[in-house]
């Protein structure tokens, strides 16, 4: 049984690319394969010109490829702020040998805390900073995941349905924020989304998957008119009704 087979796509540096497709098309599996959470039987992943196919998820994250999960994975028994602070990169205090010597990391820790607060503010969770993450609602968890991912200062952020359960106004603000990060820092965004309005509105390119394959990759206007795409969606809908 192959969930994803023959799915080749490219995400241009500095672009906002969306990954769409009917339920069960293999979008999340594709994410898992690219980010190293699932081992691919074959195929290659190239990131910033390097073949990173067999690398583990934490290695890829440190290299700048950071993802979120469709089913959120917040660290429930840790504070919201700790969830965000955890993601900071290059923190000397996270090294075992430094754990006993606070002066080696106190400064960085204060920096990280400040940045985490800013990030929580950005996603509207600042007031919840000291709450346990497990007390957050589904939408808030999505926001926390996003904040955590951005806190890691990725060059490519991969978001699995980041808007699901998030109120549309805030969702819109977050998309603007991502767009701003792209302008300022050259952030590349790849996201899975079902809301076609959002997809067509912000994407430079759209990758369409169906039944484990990439059907097409094109700018939104072309995708909208592509008969194969329409068939894939209608086909899936037709089967669902049958």
């Amino acid at each position: 049984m192959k969930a994803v087979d023959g799915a080749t796509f490219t995400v241009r540096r500095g672009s906002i690319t969306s990954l769409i497709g009917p339920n069960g098309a293999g979008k999340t599996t594709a994410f898992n394969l690219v980010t190293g959470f699932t081992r691919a039987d074959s195929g290659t992943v190239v990131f910033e010109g390097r073949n990173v196919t067999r690398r583990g998820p934490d290695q890829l994250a440190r290299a700048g490829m950071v993802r979120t999960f469709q089913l959120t994975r917040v660290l429930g028994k840790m504070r919201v702020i700790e969830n965000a602070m955890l993601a900071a990169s290059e923190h000397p205090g996270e090294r075992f040998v430094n754990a006993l010597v606070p002066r080696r990391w106190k400064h960085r820790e204060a920096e990280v805390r400040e940045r985490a607060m800013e990030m929580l503010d950005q996603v509207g969770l600042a007031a919840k900073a000291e709450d346990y993450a497990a007390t957050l609602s589904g939408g808030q968890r999505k926001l926390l995941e996003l904040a955590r991912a951005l806190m890691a200062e990725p060059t490519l952020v991969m978001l699995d349905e980041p808007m699901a359960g998030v109120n549309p106004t805030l969702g819109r603000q977050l998309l603007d924020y991502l767009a701003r990060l792209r302008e300022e820092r050259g952030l590349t965004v790849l996201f899975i989304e079902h809301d076609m309005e959002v997809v067509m509105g912000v994407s430079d390119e759209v990758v369409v998957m169906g039944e484990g394959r990439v059907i097409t990759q094109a700018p939104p206007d072309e995708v909208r008119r592509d008969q194969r795409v329409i068939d894939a969606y209608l086909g899936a809908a037709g089967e669902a009704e049958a």
Partner: protein
Amino acid sequence: MDPLLAFGFWAYVLTVAGVYAIFVLGLQVQVGDTGLLNFGHVAFMAIGAYSLGLMVTNGIPTIVAIPIAVVLAAIAGVLLGLPTLRLRGDYFAIVTIAAGEILRILVQNRQDETGGTLGLRRASGAWRDWNDSMLDWLDGLGLRDLDRRVPLLVITWVTAVLVALLLMHIGRSPWRRTLRAVRENEDAAAAVGKPVFRLKLQALALGAAIAGLAGVYFTFLQTSLYPENFEPIVTFIGFAILILGGIGSYFGTVLGSIVIAFIISGVRFLDFPIAEDKVAALRFVVIGLIIMGMMAFRPQGLFGKKEELHLD
């Protein structure tokens, strides 16, 4: 004299409690902080104890043997972790309990080196001399006719408190935050670049080193080592202490050790109208009841955080 009133007896019980406190502090790092269900923790104590015993009986000075024994326990943690830490929770638990039993049976069967079931005698090396010098020194300070067991009692507890303070100090570091993240969700930790496998390995090795240290004090206390000192029940008593004191609380661990040690060592001296071997079994019944009672009425333990319990 009635053993219940004898100071020496209670000094012994409290020393056992101190050894358990150190032992379980190591377990706390693995289970409480990192979420590693290590059911073979006793193996690391055995490695600390037998390493010390084998070195001193082969002419290595005790003062040199102690740090080596602790380091060997840590190395054993790494060696056990390398092939097993990629396993998920319950599978890891099964492998660790098996590893502990394999070690114990190995010690039992290598009779020429370890003494096997006949025991490894004089395993505590120079401890007796140290003990005498300390008693002399205390005598000079005016503390005359102290029980022979007092020096070890004091040193064990000083060590336990130092280890607890050390862990509390480390506990405020970002390193421990990453351990807790691994405990909460490995995938989430990996997704933001935390080296999950290495962190688990570090936690396992640190906990193992602490258990090795407990093994050193255990050896000082017992002088002779027997394989049956290191049966899986020791690990489970450790878990009982962990549950009683509260998972995540170093202070609770220390207090839980005292309570459980009193039950284990104390029950056999109480006068029950049943056969002696049944009294021995009774203490495990009591421990079982305590665990059940805690789970039912105070699942966070004496010092665990209640608010964390209902989160998920």
